[in-house]
């Protein structure tokens, strides 16, 4: 047996970012063990690892590379996602500074380590060219998240969220695995290229297996990215999780889930994608509508953002419904904007959160008078989420809608536009509470300077991207062109 068929030094270079991140995570844990656990040091080490991983990831972004005998595929698409994850991870770590202490738990090295592991899992998901790798990446991500959600060991809400997320996640994993098994049964292989070959050559064992397999795989993803009616865990889990983790939870897995879905349907099932368009249509319409309408009546900011993120998943599914180069690049753009904005918003929420306060919309009354800059940033985030010009959110929504319109999904786009209208209402409710209420705010915001600097940077970036989106658009178009 010739081992070089499966493993060469090139493969090792290919997964260098993952290796670096693993080493970083282990060093963080070692530092924790040695009681060198000053938060600043740990953050620095983790950030260093993330930067290094990013540098190595860009280093590998030449032509398309196939690693480990077809297990991984590296291209601009996967590199784009690598960067997205690294950015999300870095921002989460920065915004988490001081949060755990505030919630009565010591700052622990496990926290950054688990985030790093989650990033590895996500990277694998979008680099995968094999169902086995997607499965492992997904589980690595999910396991880390279960622990992160339940990270406040002495907080009942956090425990409960952890358990709910774990049980539902495991339930979904069961469906996902059954789907993977049936797909394997249908095609005789778990490799995407193999599946494509089997479908085009019609050497499928039985169409039924394939059909059930795709359906169940889809359900597994639908759980992870919270599509209606598989979304019901998300408000509960988002509410109970530590707020900084919630920020991570509503951005990273969504990005990875959609990235993996795009690859799956654009590579493995590309020939039968059209059969599933009705399902995507329905999922999209239901998800955005129910997510938005439920968000309307929330009073808890975290729950509101949870339902809002459900509705955003509905918009994103439009991109997978259309699935051409334009729509994929629109999805990528949307994901960047959505992730960064949500992280910023949750950073502000986590700064405002206190014992028994700071999570209700009413608590934000009159905040603008006390913290004009933070409120301005929050306003920009909300406008961006609502898709309001001239923020980046508008460009994102616009690109997605026009991609759908150009393929003739006018009905769906009308639903989407109506939903955007509804969403304005609840996003602006927070803004109105901050600006247009007389009451003196009694919230005492606790934050680190670094976090505030980054919140400001995100806000400025959203405006700049809304006015001149060209640079990011170029990147996403290039990334999308490698898979489309």
């Amino acid at each position, binding site marked *: 047996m010739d081992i070089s068929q499966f493993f060469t030094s090139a493969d090792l270079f290919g997964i260098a970012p993952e290796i670096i991140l693993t080493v970083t995570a282990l060093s963080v844990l070692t530092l924790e063990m040695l009681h060198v656990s000053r938060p600043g040091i740990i953050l620095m080490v983790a950030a260093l690892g993330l930067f290094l991983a990013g540098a190595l990831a860009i280093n590998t972004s030449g032509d398309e590379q196939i690693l480990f005998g077809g297990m991984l595929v590296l291209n601009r698409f996967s590199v784009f996602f690598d960067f997205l994850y690294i950015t999300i991870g870095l921002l989460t770590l920065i915004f988490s500074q001081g949060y755990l202490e505030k919630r009565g738990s010591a700052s622990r090295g496990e926290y950054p380590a688990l985030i790093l592991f989650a990033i590895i899992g996500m990277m694998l998901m979008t680099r995968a060219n094999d169902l086995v790798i997607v499965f492992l990446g997904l589980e690595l991500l999910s396991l880390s998240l279960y622990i992160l959600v339940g990270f406040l060991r002495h907080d009942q809400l956090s425990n409960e969220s952890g358990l709910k997320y774990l049980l539902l996640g495991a339930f979904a994993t069961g469906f996902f695995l059954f789907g993977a098994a049936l797909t394997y049964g249908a095609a005789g292989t778990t490799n995407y290229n193999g599946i494509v070959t089997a479908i085009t050559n019609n050497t499928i064992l039985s169409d039924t297996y394939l059909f059930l397999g795709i359906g169940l795989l889809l359900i597994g993803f639908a759980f992870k990215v919270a599509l209606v009616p598989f979304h019901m865990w998300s408000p*509960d889990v988002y509410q109970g999780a530590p707020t900084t983790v919630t920020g991570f939870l509503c951005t990273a897995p969504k990005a990875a889930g959609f990235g993996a879905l795009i690859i799956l349907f654009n590579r493995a099932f590309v020939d039968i994608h059209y059969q599933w368009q009705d399902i995507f249509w329905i999922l999209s319409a239901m998800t955005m509508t129910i997510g938005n309408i439920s968000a309307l009546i929330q009073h808890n900011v975290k729950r509101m953002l949870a339902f809002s993120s459900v509705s955003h998943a509905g918009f994103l599914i439009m991109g997978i419904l259309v699935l051409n180069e334009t729509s994929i690049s629109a999805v990528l753009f949307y994901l960047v904007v959505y992730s960064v904005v949500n992280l910023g918003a949750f950073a502000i929420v986590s700064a405002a959160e206190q014992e028994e306060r700071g999570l209700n919309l009413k608590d934000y009354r009159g905040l603008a008078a006390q913290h004009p800059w933070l409120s301005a940033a929050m306003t920009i985030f909300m406008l961006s989420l609502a898709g309001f010009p001239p923020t980046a959110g508008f460009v994102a929504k616009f690109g997605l809608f026009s991609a759908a319109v150009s393929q003739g999904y006018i009905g769906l786009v009308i639903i989407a536009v109506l939903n955007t209208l509804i969403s304005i209402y609840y996003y602006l409710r927070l803004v109105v509470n901050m600006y247009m209420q007389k009451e003196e705010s009694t919230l005492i915001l606790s934050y680190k300077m670094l976090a505030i600097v980054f919140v400001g940077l995100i806000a400025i970036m959203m405006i700049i991207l809304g006015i001149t989106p060209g640079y990011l658009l170029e990147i996403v178009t290039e990334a999308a062109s490698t898979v489309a």
Partner: protein
Amino acid sequence: MVVPLEHVIALSMILFSIGVLGVLFRRNAITIFMSIELMLNAVNLALVGFSRYYNSVDGQVFVFLVMTLAAAEVAVGLAIIIALYRNRQTVNIDEINLMKN
């Protein structure tokens, strides 16, 4: 002589459905967990059946990985259950609902 592939898959599906039923039926978080294990085992059975049919090792490697996952998930799950039990003195899923609209 071995049984036809479809019979193995049928058994796997039956076990899977029973597992789903258990998840929906039980009130005790631990037994819910056990039902999830049952679902995973059903998947394993299907994978082994397919592997046998195709005369390839891929399915079995998959099983191997699923087992790893099952072990890991159980460990984390039980740890969360223990943490919860410490704070709440219950593992009854009906009582674990502080969060609702």
